[in-house]
């Protein structure tokens, strides 16, 4: 619990309008998309690195924990104030500081909503590719902290591939800049990459310098249906082997198709066992050619349907199939665990088969879809928490799913991070030495363990 004196000092830093400790505020800053809930002692809305620095210095001298928070759309509880403390929200730091069209870089504050930024650069003919499905509401700071990815990662990479530099307030209150605005730069350790994906445990991001690209000329969307999961997986590797890198290769398994079809009746063929949504972008003539080639390449792999969008409206129609997945899952069971394992692209069919076995063994529905292009599969374990024993079964099944991914040379998380949700499973993936090295970094930067304590690394 924070005493009145500390609350007063925090108030002095951010101003009385930007601090709240009413029961209503505590409740509303105690959840995220994991549906876990921990109440903080108070919520602050600082405006800029100076205020953040003062808050962190105070936290060190008074010994209270601080939890950075963007939009609270995280899937692993990274922003949750477990154990109580101060939630530090970036909502007010939401300015796009500049977009430099000469050097194709932009500088933003962390509270900017991802889509807002995308639209701002697109107006200037530029492109910021990272597109997590939460882009309409998640923040850029949260994206950097989680190193968010999205369907375009196959071709363009994930958030960290676009971060050139950061302004970070270290847990002890010093404000540093990392990286810069040059494409090259090798002086010192790469702190930028270290902070990306550090889940708010190594510093509070207060400014971000992003690299931008020219906006691609055009894009072409194709919806392809296969009679087997292997066909779809082989399509992915065949396309890439033939030196075509699509922007997007989204995949949905049979269970997913059944869900979507039952709810929305999209007229997908009955013989379909897997869907691949393929998108290519770039020069107008080139993508026409690529679409034709892709059709030829995947034709022999058990293709039962191939639809190409003629225009933006049709493209949106094809994307609808993918977007309807989430809303239709709830028909299977009310509660879901959404895990996002990654395996090497070619191992997608193997891991799906392993998951089928796990599903049969535990007798709970598991629905798989995701980013086939980078082997990142969203494994949705659907349960009803009200049914006794299902929760325990789900936890066992999750563990086996992780094991399957690791056995095939993969990882337990491609985009959602560790936070609180995956912490217990860390020893399955990281060795004791790896964990020790990470803990040494955390200790060096945060000696009093005040910034987002208890997250990511096993305690």
């Amino acid at each position, binding site marked *: 619990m924070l005493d009145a004196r500390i609350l007063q000092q925090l108030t002095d830093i951010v101003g009385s309008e930007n601090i709240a400790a009413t029961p*209503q505020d505590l409740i509303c800053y105690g959840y*995220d998309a994991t549906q876990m809930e921990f109440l903080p002692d108070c919520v602050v809305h600082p405006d800029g690195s100076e205020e953040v620095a003062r808050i962190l210095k105070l936290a060190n001298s008074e010994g209270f924990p601080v939890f950075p928070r963007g*939009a609270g759309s995280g899937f692993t509880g990274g922003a949750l104030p477990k154990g109580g403390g101060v939630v530090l929200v970036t*909502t007010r730091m939401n300015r796009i500081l500049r977009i430099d069209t000469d050097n194709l870089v932009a500088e933003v504050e962390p509270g900017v909503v991802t889509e807002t930024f995308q639209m701002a650069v697109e107006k200037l003919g530029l492109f910021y590719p990272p597109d997590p499905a939460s882009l309409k509401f998640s923040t850029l700071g949260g994206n950097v902290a989680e190193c968010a990815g999205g369907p375009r990662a196959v071709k363009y990479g994930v958030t960290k591939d676009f971060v050139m530099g950061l302004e970070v307030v270290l847990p002890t209150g010093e404000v540093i800049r990392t990286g810069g605005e040059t494409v090259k730069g090798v002086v010192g350790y790469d702190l930028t990459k270290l902070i990306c994906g550090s889940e708010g445990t190594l510093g509070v991001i207060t400014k971000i310098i992003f690299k931008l690209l020219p906006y691609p000329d055009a894009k072409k969307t194709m919806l392809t249906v296969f009679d087997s999961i292997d066909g779809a997986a082989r399509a992915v590797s065949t396309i890439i082997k033939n030196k075509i890198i699509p922007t997007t290769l989204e995949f949905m398994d049979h269970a997913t198709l059944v869900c979507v079809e039952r709810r929305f009746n999209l007229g997908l063929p009955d013989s379909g066992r897997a869907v691949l949504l393929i998108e290519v972008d770039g020069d107008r003539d080139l993508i026409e050619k690529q679409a034709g080639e892709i059709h030829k390449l995947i034709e022999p792999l058990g293709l039962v349907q191939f639809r190409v969008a003629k225009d933006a409206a049709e493209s949106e129609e094809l994307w609808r199939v993918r977007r309807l997945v989430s809303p239709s899952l709830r028909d299977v069971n009310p509660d879901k665990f959404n895990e996002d394992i990654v395996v090497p692209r070619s191992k997608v069919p193997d891991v799906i088969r392993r998951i089928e076995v796990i599903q049969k063994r535990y007798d709970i529905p598991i629905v798989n879809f995701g980013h086939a292009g980078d082997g990142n599969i969203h494994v949705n374990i659907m349960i009803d928490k009200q049914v006794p024993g299902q929760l325990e079964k789900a936890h066992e099944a999750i563990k086996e799913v992780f094991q399957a991914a690791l056995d095939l040379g993969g990882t337990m998380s491609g985009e959602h991070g560790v936070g609180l949700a995956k912490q217990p499973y860390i020893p399955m993936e990281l060795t004791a030495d790896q964990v020790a090295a990470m803990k040494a970094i955390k200790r060096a930067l945060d000696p009093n363990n005040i910034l987002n304590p208890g997250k990511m690394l096993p305690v």
Partner: protein
Amino acid sequence: MTKKQIDPLERVAAEMKKCVKCGACRAHCPAFSTFQREPATARGKVALAQHLCKGDITLDDGTYSAMSKCLLCGSCVEKCPNQVPTDEIVIAAREALAQRRGLTTFHKAVGQVIKNRKVMNFGALAAAILGPLFFRKVPATSGLRLRFPMPFIGGSRHIPQIAKKPFMKRHPEVIQGEPGKPRIVFFVGCMTNFVYTEIGEATLALFRHLGCTVIIPKGQQCCGLPGMSGGDLNTVRELAEMNLAAIEAHQADYVMTACATCGGALHKLYPLVVGKRNPELKQRLQALADKTVDAAVLLQKLGLTPEETGTGSGMRITYHDPCHHRTAGITKEPRALLKRTPGLELVEMEGADRCCGLGGTFNVYHYENSLDINASKSAAIIATGADAVVTGCPGCIMQLSDGLKQAGDKTRVLHTVELLARKIRR
């Protein structure tokens, strides 16, 4: 808290569970867009309602205030991946809080006024006589939304004038049409009755043009939405019964409204708030709901030919979707009619489907925020370069006019029926 008091929230307990706190509603909630704090989002309000339900939160001003930060626009419901009916949850929470705390003096007054047409008539008369001067001092603001001048909020707000003679006093109860043509009950609504009587006249003219018999039941009252805003659902229930009786007294094929808000009340709110305890009433209200139809939809259905009836003059217009239309799926019909009207050029604005910021008593308690939401609306309207913005809700008309005037803009604000009836009324 006794069992009975918690009742309204229990009604939506199962719905609340559907919220997975994903945060998608942050992108669509106009209340969040202006307050920028979680308790104002749909997700925040659901979380608070859940805690209210569990009884582990003090039911103090804080929760009341959080629940007041909702325009009941339904945007969240449409965009929520899990279709969580936040609007219904907020209504239930407001009722629960009102039961526990008692109504605010303001909302008590609202209830008294909207339940009593005589008082309303008198208030309107007084307002009309004292004219704009009176209104500058006692701005009706919400009052107009609340269909009555309320003694607060000053400043630069632009308030429309009260009509010298209410619409319903100008016309007999039954206006006989041609035999074999539909019989239509016109549910007028307070804004049209007391302020924008032009809308009433235009509506009447259009349906008479089509040969319909138009019935304007004398016993009809305020639809009750203003009561709902404050959690005074008992007033809503009373008004629902009064209106039902007034409408049922006549044989009609349709119950028609030219106000999106009234339409929303008759169509959705009434069956929703009448509990399971009264199945007979619920069934009658459902029958009323099924018969209720918006003027534009009915005109389209009855085959109005805007080619003949519409304005001849050339005009560039843009269309604003009232929330109560959007959530009821009424977006195509008004546009179709306007598009077919010769001389009109319809240009879409950015975010035509976004709330104008009025939101019942929201704009009374949060006037600045209401204006803030409205500012982007005005900007979008102005950007189209249209001569007029057209819509189907007198409430929106008031809010849009206020916003445009605040922005120093001269774009006119009109109701769809006004444009459609131009030629025949000339």
